[in-house]
């Protein structure tokens, strides 16, 4: 999961200072915005961990926040001024004070990362292909339809389809011609078995 950090604050001193600390300690890529509405242009991000640090009392534009929350793990951190001691208030996930030490800032990021990784979906295993999957690739490369493959390999069409899905996920190759090239490159087939000019 990629991490996006936004620091949204009208004060350049605060933006740059906080960005410097986070970059130094966490090697994070940080987007600094001076106006809250600028965040609207980032509303299409999905499947990321997003940390937004905004001035306490301010909030993200409702529509954008909703969209970001739906498609990502979003954490909104309020940044309060030094004299403010009230701590976390409604509408934010965490509170940060401008007087916070480096250590406190580090801790906060670790807490956020931990809570994000807890709900992270488990990745499919990237193992090698099974013998059956290799059989299926060979038939795909030879140009057989799902039905023909099912008959030839003595399995149901449903099983063929599920093999194809697993193959694409494991190899990250989606096109039929790409799978044909894969089969040749990995010696599942000989180049003389197919006509390279007729790649689908």
């Amino acid at each position, binding site marked *: 999961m990629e991490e996006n950090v936004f620091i949204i604050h009208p004060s350049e001193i605060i933006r740059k200072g906080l960005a410097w600390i986070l970059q130094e300690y966490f090697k994070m890529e940080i987007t600094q915005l001076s106006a809250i509405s600028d965040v609207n242009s980032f509303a299409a991000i999905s499947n990321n961990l997003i940390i937004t640090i905004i001035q306490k009392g301010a909030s993200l534009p409702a529509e954008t926040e909703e969209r970001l929350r739906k498609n990502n793990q979003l954490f909104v951190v309020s940044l309060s001024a030094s004299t403010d001691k009230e701590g976390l208030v409604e509408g934010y996930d965490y509170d940060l004070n401008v007087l916070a030490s480096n250590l406190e800032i580090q801790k906060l990021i670790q807490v956020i990362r931990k809570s994000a990784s807890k709900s992270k979906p488990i990745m499919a295993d990237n193992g090698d292909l099974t013998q059956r999957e290799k059989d299926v690739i060979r038939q795909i490369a030879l140009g057989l339809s799902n039905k023909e493959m099912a008959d030839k390999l003595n399995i149901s069409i449903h099983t063929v389809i599920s093999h194809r899905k697993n193959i694409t996920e494991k190899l990250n*190759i989606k096109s039929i011609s790409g799978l044909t090239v894969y089969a040749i490159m990995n010696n599942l087939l000989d180049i003389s078995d197919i006509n390279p000019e007729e790649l689908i």
Partner: protein
Amino acid sequence: MKIFKKEDKMSSLVSANSNLLPVINRFGIQLGFKEKTIQDICKEKEVNPDFFLAIVNTYTDENYFPEEELLSFSPLLLIDYLKNTHNYYIGYALPKIERLLENIMANCGENYPSLKMISSFYQKYKTELLLHLKHEDEKEFPYIVELYKTRKLRPGQKSITEYENEHTDVEEKLSDLKNLLIKYVEPGYNHNDMNEFLQALFQFEKDLYDHARIEDAILIKQVSMLENELKPNEVR
């Protein structure tokens, strides 16, 4: 990551991201910026600075996508830009990739089925992409231009979504091509040739991705909105 603003110097843009050079060339803007700002140069070249920034920032930060701003520009402006991009692909980017692939093929042994397959796979990809571009240049774009000029839907006219569905996804095979090379190519090729080829593929993929994003999320959206507006008129 920094979002560029009108007051920034044009030179800072290229210093921050040299991949933007071909993008700004498409607006007729070339090197030799002196101390001029983005605003200055846009004015000189009669380019709409807000449109310029929306495009440039979209390319700079892949998470940035100024939907609201971009939707406020005329689709005709957008079409000009997209057509220039197509010409850049056809006239420069693809021939360059091909030259690099020819280098690889010329410097590897005769009996190398893997690369032979890669080469025919590339041809396949190219044919598909050229068809896609042609479909847009010759059918989709003229339809949009006419629609904005006449503000009328002809009876039986295909909608923009129907046009879109007619052409294929151009990213799938390109991503396959990259993966095949990265994961399965066997030794026997010239490293430098191969690296250049792969780098060119990466850059092309990125450019194409942003291009498609602008088409899908802005152009198609805008045209669909106009089509919906015009529909009741047609019934009357």
